[in-house]
């Protein structure tokens, strides 16, 4: 610490500003790339669809990261909740003739309500018990949708109307990108707020958090509701773009993919999980068939095996994920450290 208080003050606050600028520049570059990428992708509706799908997976993975990585609630119900959002919207549109927008709002609320019920039922469940409970819940939802085919169309899938007549792949791209950016902003706001601080304390030790005055019941239920609303909204919007949803989308394999994507990106990092999901989804698509030295190879299901190997590698050697340490080093670490300490250190050196 310098003898001169003003000089010390400057030395501490300047890196904080620089780090914040660095972070926002990074975010701006990323967003600009995503906004401009249709210029390249527009040549191929297929590629546009793949990237749009990757945005959907990024929302699911980052919201799962908020629920499991930040709040410590290891749930397997995410895909089921996205499905509930989509099926609610689709059924309302088909049977009551509601507009997609009304259906999306209703689907989002339906997923939020189910999230509330799960949160209340799981209050005393932790770790493996919570995971098993939510797996059972997801399977029940899937089986109901599969067997009640007179309402849900079963394996044939439920048709959903487009978001609006004549919507283009480009518009769908921007709608989903917008949804991703808004949901990321909301989740970042939550994780950096008082709510996020309490969630992390609860993740570490619920009893100790309660002994420090944290209403763990309220926040546990609340995080289930918030993440359920996000995935319900994402599911309803995305499957209106895909135009069909089947119960298979809620298979445990699909949920496992979301979790694997989040873990590879960095389970405790919303951005890491989102980027992990985005890149994983695109990689899985690129790996459908490859050309090596002129030899054409169709990988089919083997690409999932490769993905599984990558997951095993991550869990064994990089438990913070493969992407998070890079993101942390580039943009976050200094901001976090300085944000936490600058105020107090400044107070210490100010006359």
């Amino acid at each position, binding site marked *: 610490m310098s003898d001169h208080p003003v000089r010390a003050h400057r030395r501490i606050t300047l890196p904080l500003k620089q780090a914040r600028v660095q972070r926002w520049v990074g975010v701006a570059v990323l967003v600009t790339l995503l906004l401009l990428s249709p210029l390249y992708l527009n040549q191929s509706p297929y590629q546009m669809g793949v990237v749009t799908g990757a945005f959907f997976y990024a929302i699911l993975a980052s919201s799962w990261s908020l629920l499991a990585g930040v709040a410590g609630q290891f749930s397997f119900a995410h895909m089921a909740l996205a499905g509930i959002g989509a099926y609610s919207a689709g059924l309302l549109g088909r049977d009551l003739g509601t507009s997609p927008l009304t259906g999306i709002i209703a689907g989002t609320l339906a997923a939020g309500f189910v999230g509330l019920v799960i949160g209340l039922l799981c209050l005393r469940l932790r770790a493996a018990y919570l995971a098993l409970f939510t797996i059972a819940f997801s399977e029940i939802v899937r089986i109901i949708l599969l067997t009640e085919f007179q309402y849900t169309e079963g394996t044939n899938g439920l048709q959903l109307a487009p978001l609006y007549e004549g919507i283009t792949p480009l518009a769908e791209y921007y709608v989903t990108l917008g949804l991703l950016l808004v949901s990321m902003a909301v989740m970042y706001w939550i994780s950096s707020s008082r709510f996020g601080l309490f969630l*992390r304390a609860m993740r*570490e*030790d619920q*009893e100790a958090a309660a*002994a*420090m005055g944290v*209403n763990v019941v309220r926040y546990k239920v609340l995080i289930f509701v918030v993440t359920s609303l996000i995935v319900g909204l994402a599911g309803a919007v995305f499957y209106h773009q895909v135009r069909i949803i089947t119960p298979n989308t809620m298979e445990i394999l699909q949920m496992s993919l979301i979790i694997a994507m989040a873990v590879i990106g960095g389970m405790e990092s919303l951005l890491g999980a989102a980027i992990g999901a985005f890149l994983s989804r695109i990689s899985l698509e690129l790996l459908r068939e490859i050309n090596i030295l002129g030899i054409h190879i169709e990988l089919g299901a083997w690409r999932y095996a490769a993905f599984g190997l990558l997951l095993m590698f991550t869990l064994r050697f990089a438990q913070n994920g493969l992407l998070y340490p890079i993101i942390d080093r580039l943009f976050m670490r200094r901001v976090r450290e300085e944000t*936490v300490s600058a105020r*107090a*250190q400044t107070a210490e050196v100010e006359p």
Partner: protein
Amino acid sequence: MIELEVRGVYKNFGGLQALNDVSFQVRGPELIGLIGPNGAGKTTLTNVLDGIHKPTGGQVWFNGERIDGFPPYEIARRGIGRTFQVTRAFRRMTVLENLLVPAMAMHPTARQRSFRDKAMEVLRFLTMEHLAKEYARALSGGQQKLLELGRLLMLDPDIIILDEPFAGVHPKLMEIIYEYITTINAQDKAFLIISHDMDTIFTLSQRLLVLDFGTLIADGDPTAVRNDPAVIEAYLGEDEEERKDA
């Protein structure tokens, strides 16, 4: 005026009676030691006081309000804070964040920034200001105990329950904890301290409670308690057959 009243509290775990008709009062900023052999029910009693366990029978009153059955966070907000026998810092959070949790929970509308200065003051008091940015998991066991004490300062309760604050702690840190207790006690805070460190607890306490097999067998001045035959028997032990006969 702090007033805690434990009235005939029982706590059973299945067939095991962990607390048996325990009654005592805390009036004002007393510094009370709670001792007893292993399995005497000391930690169970603290768990009842802070709401982790609901008593099987009896009542707990705090400042004129019946609090048994309240969830732990409600009891914490009313002014009873505690540490745990095995340190329970929020390990993957920084030291400063650990301190912000109770402050933010106690003041739901206040901004996080307003507590940072207070948190740094607390860390300075605990000689830990240089560790503010460290993750709690990087701290030694003794430093984690200090961190728990720091969290209590941020919670600012009327009664502080410390479960084995001196266990496994370096003598230097022990001095800091000792100073912490006496300084905070002088600020009109009551303490209920569980410890197996007899020398320290007899020196520190103004009053001693002794539990044995869930029953409060002594409550009084440390000197009187030290010479109480029931306490001596509980600590030195007695023949198992004699106990059964009794």
